[in-house]
Every structure is written in structure tokens, then in C-alpha cells.
């Protein structure tokens, strides 16, 4: 497909995602900003999707090698990001007020 047909569509997605992201993220309270950052590290590991394709198509060994390295680094973000975010969030507890 001609890029000029696709590009406006991609830019539309980009703009809407930015607006939506700004809206949703500004509602995250400062108490959770560290988990927000590690959580966004995790979702930015979505690059793994592109890396999988690059590594798996088997065009040539250089692309496979670069793709495989990209898969590994993106997976560190995915697994490490989600796990550490979960670890942090599980520490946020509300304790019952002590009865005087």
C-alpha cells in the first residue's frame, strides 16, 4: 500500500494515543509514580513484537542475530518490568486503624 494512504492513519493513532495517555496518566497519584515508571518500562517491552518478526523471518543471519538480541533485551523489560511492578504494588497496603 502507498505510504501516503497509511501515514495519516498511523499519525491519527499516534495523536489519539498521546491524548489518551496524557489523560489517563495524569490521574495516577504521585504515591504510585515509581510503579508507573517500572510498569511503563514493561509495556515499552512491546518492541518484542517487532523483534520477534525481525528475528524469525530468517532473511539472513545478521537480521536474525540483531532480532534475537532485541528479543532478549525487550523480554528483560517485559518480565523484569511486570515482576518488579507487582512486587512494589504488593507492598502498598492499607492497615486497619488501631482502636484506642
Amino acid at each position, binding site marked *: 500500500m502507498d*505510504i501516503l494512504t497509511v501515514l495519516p492513519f*498511523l499519525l491519527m493513532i499516534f495523536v489519539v*494515543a*498521546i491524548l489518551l*495517555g*496524557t489523560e*489517563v496518566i495524569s490521574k*495516577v*497519584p*504521585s*504515591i*504510585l*509514580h*515509581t*510503579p*508507573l515508571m*517500572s510498569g*511503563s*518500562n514493561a*509495556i*515499552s517491552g*512491546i518492541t*518484542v*513484537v*517487532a*523483534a*520477534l518478526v*525481525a*528475528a*524469525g523471518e*530468517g*532473511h539472513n543471519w*545478521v*537480521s536474525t*542475530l*540483531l*532480532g*534475537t538480541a*532485541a*528479543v*532478549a*533485551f525487550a*523480554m*528483560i*523489560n517485559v*518480565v*523484569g*518490568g*511486570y*515482576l*518488579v511492578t*507487582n*512486587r*512494589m*504494588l504488593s507492598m*502498598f*497496603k*492499607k*492497615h486497619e486503624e*488501631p482502636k484506642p
Partner: protein
Amino acid sequence: MTFLAEMVYIAAAVLFVVGIKRMSAPATARKGNLLSSLGMFLAVLGTLIHFRILTPEFILLGMVIGSAAGAVLARVVKMTEMPQMVALLNGFGGLASLLVGWAEYHKNPSADLYTAVTTFLTVVVGGLTFSGSVIAWAKLKEVMTGKPILFRGQQTLNAAVLLSVFAGGVLFSMDPANNYPIFIALVGVGLLLGVTSVIPIGGADMPVVISLLNSYSGIAGCLAGFVIQNTVLIVTGSLVGASGIILTNIMCKAMNRSLANVLFSGFGSVTAKASAGEKGEVKSLTAPDAYALLEAAGSVLFVPGYGLAVAQAQHACHELAALLEKNGAEVAFAIHPVAGRMPGHMNVLLAEANVSYDLLKEMDDVNPGIDAVDVAVVIGANDVVNPAAREDASSPIFGMPIINVDKARTVIVMKRSMAAGFAGIENPLFYKENTRMLFGDAKAVLQELVSEFKRT
């Protein structure tokens, strides 16, 4: 079949957004994170099923290595080391985007102008995110000096590097098929740019830098999405990019400095000279005196700074807070946005020490009612409670929003000695009429107070 993959990607994008939305409250945040990870699982699974994967052994290898490394990292990291971990993850995100851009180019060097431009941008932004994050990590980890590294001609060098990025980008994009060497050079220049732009920034400003690099890693992913025209990459990259920018802004506002000032001024390279003028008298007190004050207090506000974490005093602090609550006092923790080494860091450290999250208050929530607080206890914090920011127009931190502890009825400041804070700025709080200094190691002092309470 592309249709099916696209549908899975849309589902993943929705789950990511819902996941972040659930982060708007601590009670729902954990579930949000789970939903988000479900989205990721679907996206990966969908991709593996949909695309013809010819070299599964390599992919498996990459996935296993990455997952194992990530799992270990997430398990062993100390909560005080979260900034380093996030810096590292920012860097890996950037590096993954760089590698994807490179692999795509290698696969098809004679791409059209659109692909060439987006590929070159992906590689440069990805590269600078990676190397910049490594420098930020090294500064946080203190394997390199936290002081700004400044030298003559630095601005000229930065300008030259930036210029060569653009020049190289234009040359490359005009004829990508015959310009592999230029492409490699662009990778190198991108990496160089990350180094030269982060070394002049002081260790104290790393919270801003890792927020910004967080944003860059998102932008790099977004650009990679444009290269391969993949919608879920664009959506996710935009979300992360927006998140990083929002956090960067919050950090800058909390320090009353512009982003340009943080990035280019070399703040902290000169030690501020002690302000002249009368200082007044410092009144110190002993732990038993402090106990008497706290025991009689109806409301106590703790103001922790990073010094609390350095002294590993979070648990002792929680224990004291719990005893005070039992004693009938109203207890809260006031957290300044830049307390700790990254956005929200102090909250995590206190949550780890079992402090109930409803006691963790933001600066803007405590300031209006602070004159009704009986005792404010400042532990290991300095600049964020410095009234000079409000009163002294000549102070380097003038205009920075602070927690107005000096307006509380009594202020107890726990401090090792009278040395100036991180930024080397005098703090008139220590000389105020209603301030009492409690000298010593924060952990030891807190434990002493705890045992005083337990004795009675």
C-alpha cells in the same frame, strides 16, 4: 490472517490503557498491572502464531535469556535501588528499538524515503536512550562521579554531534541502499549523543533525567512502530512517551526549574556560598525530651527525605508512627515530590516498611492544614523543608515549593550534624524559634524514641 493479528494488538492496547487507568488508586493498581501483562502475553502469542517464524530456536533462546535475566533482576533489586533498575530498563527499551531498526534496515536496505527517515530516527533515539541511561545508571550506582562533568567547548561539541546527526540523517535518507557506512556512523553518533547530553547533569538531578529517558524509550518504540507500520507499537510508545514527559514536568515544577536549566546548567557544580547575616541560635534536644514532646502531641507529621533511606531507618520510623497512633495521635507522612531518587520513590520505601498507604500524603494536601500540626518530625530531609525557598529571594532554591514545616507548632529535625544539604544551601529552619534539633543517626535516634515509648 493479518486481520486477526491486528485484532489481538487492539486488545493488547486496550489492556495496557485499562492497566494504567487502574493505577489511579493503590487498591486497584496491582490488578491493573496484571491486566497489562495479560495484554503483553496476548500480543506476543498473537505474533508468534501469526507470523511465519523460520528460526524458532533463536527466538526461543532470546526469550529465555531475556526472561530469566528480567526475573532475576526484579527479584534481587533492593527498593532503594529502584532508580538504577528503571534507568537500566529505560536503556534496554532504547536498545531493543535500535536493534529492531537495524535489523529492518539490514533486511531491506533499499527502502523508500519514509522508511529510511523513520529508521534513522529510531536508531538515533534508541541509541541515545541506551547510552544516556547507562550513564544515568552509573551516576546513580556511584560507579562514576555524581558531579556534573563539564569541560571547555562542551556546548560546541554537543552542537557538533547534533548537527552530524541531522547531516548524516539527510545523507542516509536520500540513498539508504548505498549508505550502510553512514547508517553505522549514525548508530555511533546516537550513542555518543546520549553520553554527551547526560554527563553534564549532576547526580541530584537524576530523577528528572530518568523520567526524561523513560519518555525517550517510549518515543524510540513509537518510531520503531512507524518503521514497521505496527499500530500497537505506536500506541504503547506514545503512552510511555507521554508518561515520561508528565513525570519530567512534575519533577521540574517541584524543583522550580525549567527542563533546559536541568539539562544544560551543570547545577551543583558550584557549591553555594553560605549566606551571610545573623543565623540565630540552634536549639538542640535529647531523645527523652523529644519523647516528651511526641508523647503529648495530638498530631504528628513525619517529613522523610532520602536520608531516611540511607540510614535504613524506614522500619524504625514506621514503628514509632504506630506507637504514636496507639498513643492517640493523628499521624501522617508528608512526601515531597522530589523526596527520594526518582518520582514516587519515598512512597515505595515507606510502603516496604509497612506504612499504610492512606497515611502517605502529598505536599499540597498537608500544607494548608500544617499550622494545626503539633509536632513535625523532619528525618533526613533538608532542601524540601527549607523556608528560604519561600522567604529568601537570593537563595538558589527560591521559588521551589516546600513542605512548610516551620509553620507547625513544633519542629523536630533529625540530622547527623549541622552540615548543609545536598545542594549545599543554608537552611534557616534550623534556627527558627519553634525548631529543635535532634542530632544523631536517624535509625539510632528513632529506635531510642521507640524504646522510650515501650518503657512506659
